[in-house]
């Protein structure tokens, strides 16, 4: 299958004050594929992920240079609309943080943000989003009960449904399974696999088995630099860089 590139990164640098956290990263994320970002804690993989939907904008003292092209258009260009960008590039966080609202409202609020008001449209969208993440059958009878009554794994599915409801093209996942038990982790990985058909997915993980199991491409980062990037099978079985090899074999990090 021929895949174009959804996101192109050109010489991306990020500074926290005087500290350089990302160093000259250039890479492309293929459309409708899962790319895993791996690397030891503090290597900048989450920071890098947050550059892709401009979530670093709100942190004081952050300076970014370089270009991030989404479908060929620079998201850091002065005329770029950050609201529209975040609608197109959704994000799922490490801890499954459902709002203290009903299950229904947790999904509906995402659509309301983008101006969907009609009750019937919302009902349909909530059902479709929950079905899309495989949660519908479990929650259809308790849509108006608090989302905080769900298990952590279910809450994370709900968070993904919330992102799906905004109609994104890209979904960023920042260690989505690190707070989950093994069974829930597998559920989320299955889900990510199914989402691949419709979305471009980029997942940060410190779990190498997860990267090996659940991704098509893998990028290895170390100290803010992109060390190696390629097909997941190649990165894990025949890494080109000795540092990648140390990391994937468990000798580093």
């Amino acid at each position, binding site marked *: 299958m021929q895949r174009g590139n959804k996101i192109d990164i050109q010489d991306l640098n990020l500074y926290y004050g005087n500290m350089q956290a990302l160093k000259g990263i250039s890479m492309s994320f293929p459309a409708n594929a899962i790319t895993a970002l791996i690397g030891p804690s503090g290597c900048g993989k989450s920071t890098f992920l947050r550059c892709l939907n401009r979530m670093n904008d709100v942190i004081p003292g952050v300076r970014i240079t370089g270009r991030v092209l989404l479908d060929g258009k620079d998201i850091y260009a002065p005329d770029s609309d950050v*609201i529209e960008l975040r609608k197109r590039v959704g994000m799922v966080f490490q801890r499954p943080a459902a709002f203290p609202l009903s299950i229904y409202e947790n999904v509906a609020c995402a659509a309301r*943000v983008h101006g969907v008001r009609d009750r019937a449209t919302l009902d349909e969208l909530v059902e479709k989003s929950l079905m899309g993440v495989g949660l519908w059958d479990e929650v259809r009878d308790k849509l108006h009960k608090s989302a905080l009554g769900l298990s952590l794994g279910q809450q994370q599915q709900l*968070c993904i449904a919330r*992102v799906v409801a905004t109609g994104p093209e890209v979904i960023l996942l920042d260690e989505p399974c690190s707070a989950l038990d093994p069974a829930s982790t597998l559920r989320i990985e299955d889900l990510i696999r199914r989402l691949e058909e419709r979305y471009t997915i980029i997942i940060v993980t410190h779990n190498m088995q997860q990267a090996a199991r659940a991704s098509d491409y893998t990028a290895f980062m170390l100290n803010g630099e992109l060390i190696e990037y390629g097909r997941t099978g190649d990165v894990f079985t025949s890494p080109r860089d000795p540092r990648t090899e140390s990391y994937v074999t468990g000798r580093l990090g």
Partner: protein
Amino acid sequence: MTRKRDERARDRAMTGVFMAATVLTIGLLVYIVVYILQKGLHVVTPAFLLESPTEMGRAGGIYPAIIGTIAVTGLAILIAAPVGVATAVFLTEYTHESAVSRLIRFGTENLAGIPSIIFGLFGFLFFVIYLDLGWSIISGALTLAAMILPTIVRTSEEAIRAVPTAYREISYALGSTRWQTVTGAVLPSAVPGIVTGIILAVGRGIGETAAVIFTAGASLGIPASIFDPVRTLPVHFYILAREGISMENAYGTAAVLIVVILLINIGAYWAMNRFAAKSNV
């Protein structure tokens, strides 16, 4: 062996000390409330609540003072609550922690420590004289609003800060504007805390004497507009007691004041529980 026995004796003794302190606190509160109610409650009849006073308050009721209290405190809250909550939202959601925001916080905290009689003097010089609003509901309400503003800012700020950062991040990541994030993700979780702060402010406002006696006046008439002077319940109580007009009616007024404040607190708890129940269906 002996050491262990010493430690146990000390433990028992300290348990007693802490209990005694608690009993003293609760006991004092109960004593004041019971004393006032005992002295004053028998004067409180429907007629006492619904009639105007005669002979300067020696006879008749306290109806104008009830109206005055509701008008001054109500208007003060209407002014202070939006301004206070907006300030808290600005400090927490629109600015990063900086020297300026610390200075603003330091300023509001100091404002909260100023004695109310100073607010009364300021209100008298600024609203009553300089702005020529005279002794009136509006002068009293503006003065009271300035006085309770720090409480509202402070409690709202704490309530807003207690909202998990994750809610804000999620909201922004979904493509919300700052306004959508504040109204959709932050304020709903902060409302119980904000409401508590406002209720506290109402309680403080209702009982305030010094700030309103200089600004709202001491008139016993029924106001026709917010530019008319009024007498609030605490001022009425103060005048009745200070000038020896009628201790009986003073205690009656105090009893009404205490019951009203208790009712407000009960109402606040009821509202908060309802809100909490609603958000946790």
